Protein backbone atom coordinates (compact mmCIF):
# COMPACT_ATOMS: atom_id res chain seq x y z
CA UNK A 1 0.00 0.00 0.00
CA UNK A 2 1.41 3.33 -1.06
CA UNK A 3 1.96 5.82 1.71
CA UNK A 4 0.35 3.68 4.36
CA UNK A 5 2.62 2.02 6.83
CA UNK A 6 1.56 -1.45 7.62
CA UNK A 7 1.19 -1.80 11.38
CA UNK A 8 0.33 -5.42 11.96
CA UNK A 9 1.11 -7.02 8.61
CA UNK A 10 -1.26 -9.52 7.10
CA UNK A 11 -0.04 -12.71 8.72
CA UNK A 12 -3.27 -13.00 10.66
CA UNK A 13 -5.23 -13.41 7.44
CA UNK A 14 -2.90 -15.97 5.89
CA UNK A 15 -4.00 -19.57 5.97
CA UNK A 16 -1.61 -22.32 6.89
CA UNK A 17 -3.02 -25.83 6.71
CA UNK A 18 -2.32 -28.24 9.54
CA UNK A 19 0.98 -29.99 8.82
CA UNK A 20 0.69 -33.72 8.42
CA UNK A 21 3.23 -36.08 9.95
CA UNK A 22 5.03 -38.33 7.44
CA UNK A 23 4.27 -41.36 9.60
CA UNK A 24 0.55 -40.67 9.34
CA UNK A 25 0.78 -40.77 5.55
CA UNK A 26 2.33 -44.24 5.78
CA UNK A 27 -0.31 -45.28 8.28
CA UNK A 28 -3.00 -44.07 5.91
CA UNK A 29 -1.69 -46.33 3.17
CA UNK A 30 -1.80 -49.35 5.49
CA UNK A 31 -5.28 -48.36 6.63
CA UNK A 32 -6.47 -48.30 3.02
CA UNK A 33 -4.78 -51.62 2.25
CA UNK A 34 -5.83 -53.54 5.29
CA UNK A 35 -9.16 -52.02 6.16
CA UNK A 36 -11.27 -55.10 6.89
CA UNK A 37 -14.26 -53.27 8.29
CA UNK A 38 -16.68 -50.49 7.56
CA UNK A 39 -15.43 -46.97 6.94
CA UNK A 40 -17.14 -44.45 9.16
CA UNK A 41 -17.81 -40.95 7.93
CA UNK A 42 -18.14 -37.87 10.06
CA UNK A 43 -19.64 -34.87 8.34
CA UNK A 44 -18.28 -31.42 9.24
CA UNK A 45 -20.37 -28.49 8.01
CA UNK A 46 -18.02 -25.48 7.73
CA UNK A 47 -20.68 -22.98 6.76
CA UNK A 48 -22.37 -24.52 3.75
CA UNK A 49 -25.86 -23.94 2.44
CA UNK A 50 -27.02 -27.49 3.38
CA UNK A 51 -27.37 -28.50 -0.27
CA UNK A 52 -24.36 -30.78 0.14
CA UNK A 53 -25.82 -32.30 3.32
CA UNK A 54 -29.05 -33.14 1.52
CA UNK A 55 -27.09 -34.94 -1.21
CA UNK A 56 -24.99 -36.82 1.37
CA UNK A 57 -28.18 -38.05 3.03
CA UNK A 58 -29.59 -38.93 -0.39
CA UNK A 59 -26.48 -41.07 -0.89
CA UNK A 60 -27.18 -42.96 2.36
CA UNK A 61 -30.86 -43.64 1.56
CA UNK A 62 -31.90 -47.07 0.19
CA UNK A 63 -31.83 -45.78 -3.39
CA UNK A 64 -28.09 -45.14 -3.51
CA UNK A 65 -27.24 -46.94 -0.27
CA UNK A 66 -23.61 -46.28 0.64
CA UNK A 67 -23.97 -48.83 3.43
CA UNK A 68 -23.50 -51.50 0.78
CA UNK A 69 -19.83 -50.58 1.02
CA UNK A 70 -19.94 -50.19 4.79
CA UNK A 71 -19.83 -46.42 4.54
CA UNK A 72 -21.84 -45.13 7.45
CA UNK A 73 -22.41 -41.67 8.87
CA UNK A 74 -21.47 -41.42 12.55
CA UNK A 75 -22.32 -38.76 15.09
CA UNK A 76 -18.88 -38.17 16.59
CA UNK A 77 -15.50 -37.42 15.03
CA UNK A 78 -13.94 -39.85 17.51
CA UNK A 79 -15.56 -42.74 15.62
CA UNK A 80 -14.60 -41.49 12.18
CA UNK A 81 -12.20 -42.80 9.54
CA UNK A 82 -13.29 -40.32 6.91
CA UNK A 83 -13.93 -36.65 7.61
CA UNK A 84 -16.24 -35.00 5.11
CA UNK A 85 -15.86 -31.21 5.02
CA UNK A 86 -18.64 -29.26 3.33
CA UNK A 87 -18.96 -25.50 3.02
CA UNK A 88 -16.55 -22.70 2.25
CA UNK A 89 -14.96 -22.57 5.77
CA UNK A 90 -16.30 -19.40 7.34
CA UNK A 91 -14.36 -17.55 10.00
CA UNK A 92 -16.73 -18.75 12.73
CA UNK A 93 -16.58 -22.41 11.67
CA UNK A 94 -12.80 -22.60 11.27
CA UNK A 95 -12.05 -23.50 14.90
CA UNK A 96 -14.84 -26.09 15.23
CA UNK A 97 -13.65 -27.68 11.97
CA UNK A 98 -10.07 -27.84 13.28
CA UNK A 99 -11.32 -29.31 16.57
CA UNK A 100 -13.21 -32.00 14.68
CA UNK A 101 -10.06 -32.71 12.67
CA UNK A 102 -7.97 -33.03 15.82
CA UNK A 103 -10.61 -35.16 17.53
CA UNK A 104 -10.66 -37.79 14.80
CA UNK A 105 -8.21 -40.63 15.42
CA UNK A 106 -5.21 -40.98 13.11
CA UNK A 107 -4.93 -42.11 10.38
CA UNK A 108 -7.88 -40.18 8.96
CA UNK A 109 -8.94 -39.50 5.40
CA UNK A 110 -10.12 -35.97 4.67
CA UNK A 111 -12.62 -35.45 1.87
CA UNK A 112 -13.43 -31.99 0.58
CA UNK A 113 -17.04 -31.99 -0.59
CA UNK A 114 -18.80 -29.67 -3.03
CA UNK A 115 -17.68 -26.58 -4.92
CA UNK A 116 -17.38 -24.60 -1.67
CA UNK A 117 -15.27 -27.25 0.04
CA UNK A 118 -12.98 -27.64 -2.96
CA UNK A 119 -12.27 -24.00 -3.76
CA UNK A 120 -14.74 -21.74 -1.99
CA UNK A 121 -17.37 -22.02 -4.72
CA UNK A 122 -19.43 -18.89 -5.27
CA UNK A 123 -18.35 -17.67 -1.83
CA UNK A 124 -14.63 -17.77 -2.61
CA UNK A 125 -14.06 -14.01 -2.36
CA UNK A 126 -16.29 -13.18 0.61
CA UNK A 127 -14.70 -11.30 3.47
CA UNK A 128 -15.27 -13.88 6.20
CA UNK A 129 -14.52 -16.97 4.14
CA UNK A 130 -11.32 -18.98 4.08
CA UNK A 131 -12.34 -20.50 0.73
CA UNK A 132 -11.81 -24.23 0.74
CA UNK A 133 -11.05 -27.04 3.13
CA UNK A 134 -7.46 -27.34 1.93
CA UNK A 135 -6.75 -23.90 3.41
CA UNK A 136 -7.04 -25.32 6.94
CA UNK A 137 -6.40 -29.07 6.76
CA UNK A 138 -4.59 -31.38 4.29
CA UNK A 139 -7.15 -32.90 1.90
CA UNK A 140 -6.98 -36.36 0.30
CA UNK A 141 -9.95 -36.36 -2.07
CA UNK A 142 -11.84 -33.51 -3.71
CA UNK A 143 -15.44 -34.10 -4.82
CA UNK A 144 -16.54 -31.10 -6.92
CA UNK A 145 -20.15 -30.28 -7.78
CA UNK A 146 -22.76 -27.86 -6.53
CA UNK A 147 -23.89 -30.08 -4.91
CA UNK A 148 -22.33 -33.36 -6.09
CA UNK A 149 -25.02 -35.89 -7.04
CA UNK A 150 -25.35 -38.99 -4.84
CA UNK A 151 -23.65 -41.01 -7.58
CA UNK A 152 -20.71 -38.57 -7.62
CA UNK A 153 -20.60 -38.89 -3.82
CA UNK A 154 -20.36 -42.68 -4.05
CA UNK A 155 -17.63 -42.35 -6.69
CA UNK A 156 -15.73 -39.96 -4.41
CA UNK A 157 -16.02 -42.31 -1.43
CA UNK A 158 -14.86 -45.22 -3.56
CA UNK A 159 -11.87 -43.15 -4.63
CA UNK A 160 -11.09 -42.18 -1.03
CA UNK A 161 -11.06 -45.87 -0.11
CA UNK A 162 -8.89 -46.69 -3.14
CA UNK A 163 -11.54 -48.81 -4.91
CA UNK A 164 -11.89 -46.72 -8.08
CA UNK A 165 -9.37 -44.70 -10.08
CA UNK A 166 -9.40 -41.03 -10.93
CA UNK A 167 -10.84 -40.23 -14.36
CA UNK A 168 -10.24 -36.49 -14.68
CA UNK A 169 -6.87 -35.31 -15.94
CA UNK A 170 -5.45 -31.80 -16.20
CA UNK A 171 -5.39 -30.59 -19.80
CA UNK A 172 -3.55 -27.80 -21.56
CA UNK A 173 -4.12 -26.72 -25.12
CA UNK A 174 -1.96 -24.45 -27.23
CA UNK A 175 -3.41 -22.85 -30.34
CA UNK A 176 -2.22 -24.59 -33.47
CA UNK A 177 -1.33 -22.66 -36.59
CA UNK A 178 -4.32 -21.68 -38.74
CA UNK A 179 -6.70 -23.03 -36.13
CA UNK A 180 -10.17 -21.71 -36.91
CA UNK A 181 -13.59 -21.85 -35.35
CA UNK A 182 -16.10 -23.25 -37.82
CA UNK A 183 -19.29 -21.39 -38.56
CA UNK A 184 -22.45 -23.44 -38.08
CA UNK A 185 -25.43 -23.62 -40.45
CA UNK A 186 -23.85 -21.43 -43.12
CA UNK A 187 -26.75 -22.17 -45.49
CA UNK A 188 -29.13 -20.09 -43.39
CA UNK A 189 -29.02 -16.29 -43.68
CA UNK A 190 -27.62 -14.55 -40.62
CA UNK A 191 -30.75 -12.45 -40.02
CA UNK A 192 -32.96 -15.57 -40.02
CA UNK A 193 -30.56 -17.27 -37.60
CA UNK A 194 -30.90 -14.35 -35.23
CA UNK A 195 -34.71 -14.45 -35.45
CA UNK A 196 -34.80 -18.20 -34.77
CA UNK A 197 -32.39 -18.08 -31.83
CA UNK A 198 -34.11 -15.11 -30.24
CA UNK A 199 -37.57 -16.63 -30.55
CA UNK A 200 -36.45 -20.07 -29.32
CA UNK A 201 -34.79 -18.57 -26.26
CA UNK A 202 -37.82 -16.42 -25.57
CA UNK A 203 -40.11 -19.45 -25.71
CA UNK A 204 -38.16 -22.11 -23.88
CA UNK A 205 -35.57 -20.44 -21.72
CA UNK A 206 -32.00 -19.60 -22.50
CA UNK A 207 -30.12 -22.91 -22.42
CA UNK A 208 -32.94 -25.09 -23.77
CA UNK A 209 -33.79 -22.45 -26.36
CA UNK A 210 -30.23 -22.43 -27.65
CA UNK A 211 -30.23 -26.21 -27.99
CA UNK A 212 -33.65 -26.26 -29.71
CA UNK A 213 -32.70 -23.48 -32.14
CA UNK A 214 -29.53 -25.39 -32.98
CA UNK A 215 -31.44 -28.62 -33.68
CA UNK A 216 -34.10 -26.80 -35.70
CA UNK A 217 -31.48 -25.07 -37.84
CA UNK A 218 -29.67 -28.37 -38.37
CA UNK A 219 -32.92 -29.82 -39.78
CA UNK A 220 -33.45 -26.71 -41.94
CA UNK A 221 -29.90 -26.75 -43.25
CA UNK A 222 -30.00 -30.33 -44.48
CA UNK A 223 -33.41 -30.19 -46.16
CA UNK A 224 -34.67 -28.55 -49.34
CA UNK A 225 -37.95 -26.70 -49.86
CA UNK A 226 -39.79 -29.90 -50.71
CA UNK A 227 -38.42 -32.09 -47.92
CA UNK A 228 -38.46 -29.61 -45.07
CA UNK A 229 -41.98 -30.49 -43.85
CA UNK A 230 -41.35 -34.23 -43.85
CA UNK A 231 -37.99 -33.79 -42.12
CA UNK A 232 -39.48 -31.60 -39.41
CA UNK A 233 -42.30 -34.10 -38.89
CA UNK A 234 -39.81 -36.95 -38.47
CA UNK A 235 -37.71 -34.85 -36.07
CA UNK A 236 -40.77 -34.06 -33.93
CA UNK A 237 -41.99 -37.64 -33.85
CA UNK A 238 -38.51 -38.70 -32.70
CA UNK A 239 -38.66 -36.16 -29.88
CA UNK A 240 -42.28 -37.04 -29.01
CA UNK A 241 -42.73 -34.01 -26.78
CA UNK A 242 -45.73 -31.66 -27.19
CA UNK A 243 -43.75 -28.73 -25.77
CA UNK A 244 -40.98 -29.11 -28.34
CA UNK A 245 -43.58 -29.59 -31.11
CA UNK A 246 -45.25 -26.30 -30.28
CA UNK A 247 -41.99 -24.36 -30.10
CA UNK A 248 -40.69 -25.83 -33.35
CA UNK A 249 -44.00 -25.03 -35.04
CA UNK A 250 -43.77 -21.39 -33.99
CA UNK A 251 -40.14 -21.26 -35.14
CA UNK A 252 -41.14 -22.73 -38.48
CA UNK A 253 -43.85 -20.07 -38.91
CA UNK A 254 -41.33 -17.33 -38.13
CA UNK A 255 -38.84 -18.78 -40.61
CA UNK A 256 -41.51 -19.01 -43.33
CA UNK A 257 -42.59 -15.43 -42.68
CA UNK A 258 -38.96 -14.33 -43.05
CA UNK A 259 -38.50 -16.25 -46.29
CA UNK A 260 -41.66 -14.72 -47.75
CA UNK A 261 -40.23 -11.35 -46.80
Amino acid at each position, binding site marked *: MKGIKSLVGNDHTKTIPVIQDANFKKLKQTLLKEIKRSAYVYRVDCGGCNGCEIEIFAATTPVFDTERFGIKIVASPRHADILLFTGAVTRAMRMPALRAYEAAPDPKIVVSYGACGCDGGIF*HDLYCVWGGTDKIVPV*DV*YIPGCPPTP*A*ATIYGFAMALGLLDQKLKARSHNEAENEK*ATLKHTGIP*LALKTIIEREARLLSGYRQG*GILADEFMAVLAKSTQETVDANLKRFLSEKNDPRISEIIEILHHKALAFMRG
Partner: protein
Amino acid sequence: MFKLFKTIIKVGTKTTIKYPFEPLDVCDDFRGKPEHDPEQCIACGACTQACPANALIMETDIENNLRRWEISFARCIYCGRCEEVCPTNAITLSQEFELAVTNKADLYEEANFTLAHCVECAEAYAPTKAVSYVHDLLVQSGLDRDDPYLSQLLNTCPSCCRRANMLDSRTLVHGQYFHDALANDSLACDVSADKVFQQERSNQGE
Protein backbone atom coordinates in the same frame (compact mmCIF):
# COMPACT_ATOMS: atom_id res chain seq x y z
CA MET B 1 -45.68 -58.14 10.33
CA PHE B 2 -47.74 -59.66 7.52
CA LYS B 3 -48.28 -56.19 6.11
CA LEU B 4 -44.50 -55.60 6.07
CA PHE B 5 -43.87 -58.81 4.11
CA LYS B 6 -46.58 -57.81 1.67
CA THR B 7 -44.90 -54.43 1.13
CA ILE B 8 -41.49 -56.07 0.68
CA ILE B 9 -42.88 -58.44 -1.97
CA LYS B 10 -44.63 -55.57 -3.71
CA VAL B 11 -41.53 -53.32 -3.79
CA GLY B 12 -39.09 -56.10 -4.62
CA THR B 13 -35.36 -56.00 -4.09
CA LYS B 14 -34.48 -53.80 -7.04
CA THR B 15 -34.81 -50.48 -5.22
CA THR B 16 -31.12 -49.77 -4.89
CA ILE B 17 -29.29 -48.37 -7.92
CA LYS B 18 -26.30 -50.59 -8.70
CA TYR B 19 -24.24 -47.54 -9.56
CA PRO B 20 -20.50 -48.26 -9.30
CA PHE B 21 -20.97 -51.77 -10.70
CA GLU B 22 -23.23 -50.65 -13.52
CA PRO B 23 -23.19 -47.36 -15.43
CA LEU B 24 -25.74 -44.88 -14.14
CA ASP B 25 -28.52 -43.54 -16.36
CA VAL B 26 -28.34 -39.76 -16.31
CA CYS B 27 -31.14 -37.69 -17.79
CA ASP B 28 -30.66 -35.71 -21.00
CA ASP B 29 -30.67 -32.33 -19.31
CA PHE B 30 -28.13 -33.31 -16.67
CA ARG B 31 -25.49 -30.62 -16.28
CA GLY B 32 -22.17 -32.34 -15.73
CA LYS B 33 -18.58 -31.46 -16.52
CA PRO B 34 -18.29 -28.50 -18.93
CA GLU B 35 -16.59 -29.91 -22.01
CA HIS B 36 -14.42 -27.30 -23.71
CA ASP B 37 -13.47 -27.68 -27.34
CA PRO B 38 -10.40 -25.45 -27.70
CA GLU B 39 -10.45 -25.66 -31.50
CA GLN B 40 -13.90 -24.11 -31.64
CA CYS B 41 -13.12 -21.50 -28.94
CA ILE B 42 -12.46 -17.97 -30.19
CA ALA B 43 -11.25 -16.65 -26.82
CA CYS B 44 -13.90 -13.93 -26.76
CA GLY B 45 -14.29 -14.18 -22.98
CA ALA B 46 -18.10 -14.24 -22.92
CA CYS B 47 -18.06 -17.28 -20.63
CA THR B 48 -15.70 -15.62 -18.16
CA GLN B 49 -18.12 -12.69 -17.94
CA ALA B 50 -21.13 -14.95 -17.45
CA CYS B 51 -19.60 -17.31 -14.88
CA PRO B 52 -21.21 -16.51 -11.51
CA ALA B 53 -18.55 -18.39 -9.53
CA ASN B 54 -15.48 -17.02 -11.37
CA ALA B 55 -14.54 -20.59 -12.21
CA LEU B 56 -13.64 -19.42 -15.70
CA ILE B 57 -10.86 -16.91 -16.03
CA MET B 58 -9.10 -15.34 -18.96
CA GLU B 59 -5.92 -13.32 -18.80
CA THR B 60 -3.94 -11.53 -21.48
CA ASP B 61 -0.18 -11.68 -21.58
CA ILE B 62 0.90 -9.07 -24.14
CA GLU B 63 4.61 -9.80 -23.76
CA ASN B 64 4.27 -13.43 -24.73
CA ASN B 65 1.47 -12.68 -27.20
CA LEU B 66 -0.87 -15.03 -25.35
CA ARG B 67 -4.38 -15.10 -24.03
CA ARG B 68 -4.88 -17.82 -21.46
CA TRP B 69 -8.26 -19.36 -20.72
CA GLU B 70 -8.72 -21.53 -17.66
CA ILE B 71 -11.56 -23.43 -16.01
CA SER B 72 -11.54 -24.73 -12.47
CA PHE B 73 -13.90 -27.65 -11.97
CA ALA B 74 -13.37 -27.21 -8.24
CA ARG B 75 -15.08 -23.84 -8.22
CA CYS B 76 -17.54 -24.51 -11.04
CA ILE B 77 -21.17 -24.76 -9.91
CA TYR B 78 -22.34 -26.46 -13.14
CA CYS B 79 -25.02 -23.86 -13.89
CA GLY B 80 -24.57 -23.84 -17.66
CA ARG B 81 -24.31 -20.07 -18.06
CA CYS B 82 -21.11 -20.52 -20.11
CA GLU B 83 -22.94 -22.82 -22.51
CA GLU B 84 -25.73 -20.25 -22.91
CA VAL B 85 -23.46 -17.40 -23.88
CA CYS B 86 -20.89 -19.23 -26.02
CA PRO B 87 -21.26 -17.89 -29.58
CA THR B 88 -19.50 -20.86 -31.21
CA ASN B 89 -20.79 -23.75 -29.05
CA ALA B 90 -17.24 -24.37 -27.87
CA ILE B 91 -18.33 -25.18 -24.34
CA THR B 92 -21.13 -27.63 -23.57
CA LEU B 93 -22.12 -29.31 -20.34
CA SER B 94 -21.62 -33.05 -20.72
CA GLN B 95 -23.17 -35.95 -18.81
CA GLU B 96 -19.88 -36.67 -17.05
CA PHE B 97 -20.25 -36.55 -13.26
CA GLU B 98 -17.33 -38.65 -12.00
CA LEU B 99 -15.10 -35.71 -11.22
CA ALA B 100 -13.56 -36.59 -7.86
CA VAL B 101 -9.76 -36.28 -7.78
CA THR B 102 -6.96 -36.88 -5.33
CA ASN B 103 -4.67 -34.33 -6.95
CA LYS B 104 -6.15 -30.84 -7.07
CA ALA B 105 -4.13 -29.82 -10.14
CA ASP B 106 -6.23 -32.24 -12.19
CA LEU B 107 -9.29 -30.06 -11.62
CA TYR B 108 -7.94 -27.38 -13.95
CA GLU B 109 -8.07 -27.15 -17.72
CA GLU B 110 -6.43 -24.42 -19.74
CA ALA B 111 -6.06 -23.23 -23.32
CA ASN B 112 -3.67 -20.67 -24.80
CA PHE B 113 -4.55 -18.47 -27.76
CA THR B 114 -2.49 -16.05 -29.80
CA LEU B 115 -3.28 -12.38 -30.28
CA ALA B 116 -3.78 -10.46 -33.52
CA HIS B 117 -1.74 -7.29 -34.09
CA CYS B 118 -2.96 -4.06 -35.63
CA VAL B 119 -1.53 -3.39 -39.11
CA GLU B 120 -1.04 0.29 -38.30
CA CYS B 121 0.18 0.57 -34.73
CA ALA B 122 1.32 -3.08 -34.35
CA GLU B 123 -0.36 -3.44 -30.97
CA ALA B 124 -2.23 -6.55 -29.92
CA TYR B 125 -5.97 -5.86 -29.93
CA ALA B 126 -7.94 -9.14 -30.15
CA PRO B 127 -7.42 -12.91 -30.30
CA THR B 128 -6.53 -14.10 -33.80
CA LYS B 129 -9.36 -16.61 -33.86
CA ALA B 130 -11.96 -14.00 -32.87
CA VAL B 131 -10.86 -11.79 -35.76
CA SER B 132 -11.07 -14.62 -38.29
CA TYR B 133 -14.49 -15.62 -36.88
CA VAL B 134 -15.80 -12.07 -37.33
CA HIS B 135 -14.42 -12.10 -40.87
CA ASP B 136 -16.30 -15.33 -41.63
CA LEU B 137 -19.50 -13.92 -40.11
CA LEU B 138 -19.30 -10.73 -42.18
CA VAL B 139 -18.65 -12.72 -45.33
CA GLN B 140 -21.66 -14.91 -44.57
CA SER B 141 -23.84 -11.87 -43.99
CA GLY B 142 -23.15 -10.68 -47.51
CA LEU B 143 -19.90 -8.69 -47.57
CA ASP B 144 -17.41 -9.38 -50.33
CA ARG B 145 -14.58 -11.69 -49.28
CA ASP B 146 -11.96 -9.73 -51.26
CA ASP B 147 -13.18 -6.30 -50.19
CA PRO B 148 -10.05 -4.34 -49.17
CA TYR B 149 -12.14 -2.31 -46.72
CA LEU B 150 -13.16 -5.45 -44.87
CA SER B 151 -9.65 -6.77 -44.32
CA GLN B 152 -8.35 -3.34 -43.42
CA LEU B 153 -11.16 -2.76 -40.97
CA LEU B 154 -10.68 -6.12 -39.31
CA ASN B 155 -6.93 -5.92 -39.06
CA THR B 156 -6.76 -2.51 -37.40
CA CYS B 157 -7.30 -1.94 -33.72
CA PRO B 158 -10.38 0.03 -32.57
CA SER B 159 -8.40 3.17 -31.73
CA CYS B 160 -6.71 3.23 -35.16
CA CYS B 161 -10.11 2.65 -36.80
CA ARG B 162 -11.52 5.57 -34.86
CA ARG B 163 -8.65 7.79 -35.92
CA ALA B 164 -9.10 6.82 -39.56
CA ASN B 165 -12.83 7.50 -39.34
CA MET B 166 -12.21 10.93 -37.91
CA LEU B 167 -10.04 11.81 -40.90
CA ASP B 168 -12.28 10.30 -43.53
CA SER B 169 -15.92 9.43 -42.99
CA ARG B 170 -16.06 7.33 -46.15
CA THR B 171 -14.10 4.59 -44.42
CA LEU B 172 -17.05 3.96 -42.13
CA VAL B 173 -18.57 0.57 -42.76
CA HIS B 174 -22.17 0.41 -41.70
CA GLY B 175 -24.21 -2.65 -40.88
CA GLN B 176 -26.67 -4.24 -43.21
CA TYR B 177 -29.65 -2.47 -41.61
CA PHE B 178 -28.09 0.92 -42.23
CA HIS B 179 -27.61 0.10 -45.89
CA ASP B 180 -31.22 -1.08 -46.14
CA ALA B 181 -32.40 2.13 -44.54
CA LEU B 182 -30.28 4.16 -46.93
CA ALA B 183 -31.81 2.30 -49.83
CA ASN B 184 -35.26 3.12 -48.50
CA ASP B 185 -34.22 6.76 -48.39
CA SER B 186 -35.62 7.14 -44.89
CA LEU B 187 -32.24 7.77 -43.37
CA ALA B 188 -30.53 9.37 -46.34
CA CYS B 189 -31.91 12.85 -45.75
CA ASP B 190 -31.14 12.63 -42.03
CA VAL B 191 -27.56 11.71 -42.78
CA SER B 192 -27.09 14.43 -45.36
CA ALA B 193 -28.62 16.98 -42.99
CA ASP B 194 -26.28 15.81 -40.30
CA LYS B 195 -23.29 16.14 -42.60
CA VAL B 196 -24.21 19.68 -43.54
CA PHE B 197 -24.58 20.51 -39.88
CA GLN B 198 -21.18 19.06 -39.08
CA GLN B 199 -19.54 20.98 -41.92
CA GLU B 200 -21.07 24.19 -40.68
CA ARG B 201 -19.79 23.51 -37.23
CA SER B 202 -16.27 22.82 -38.47
CA ASN B 203 -16.37 25.99 -40.54
CA GLN B 204 -17.38 27.95 -37.48
CA GLY B 205 -14.59 26.36 -35.51
CA GLU B 206 -12.06 27.46 -38.06
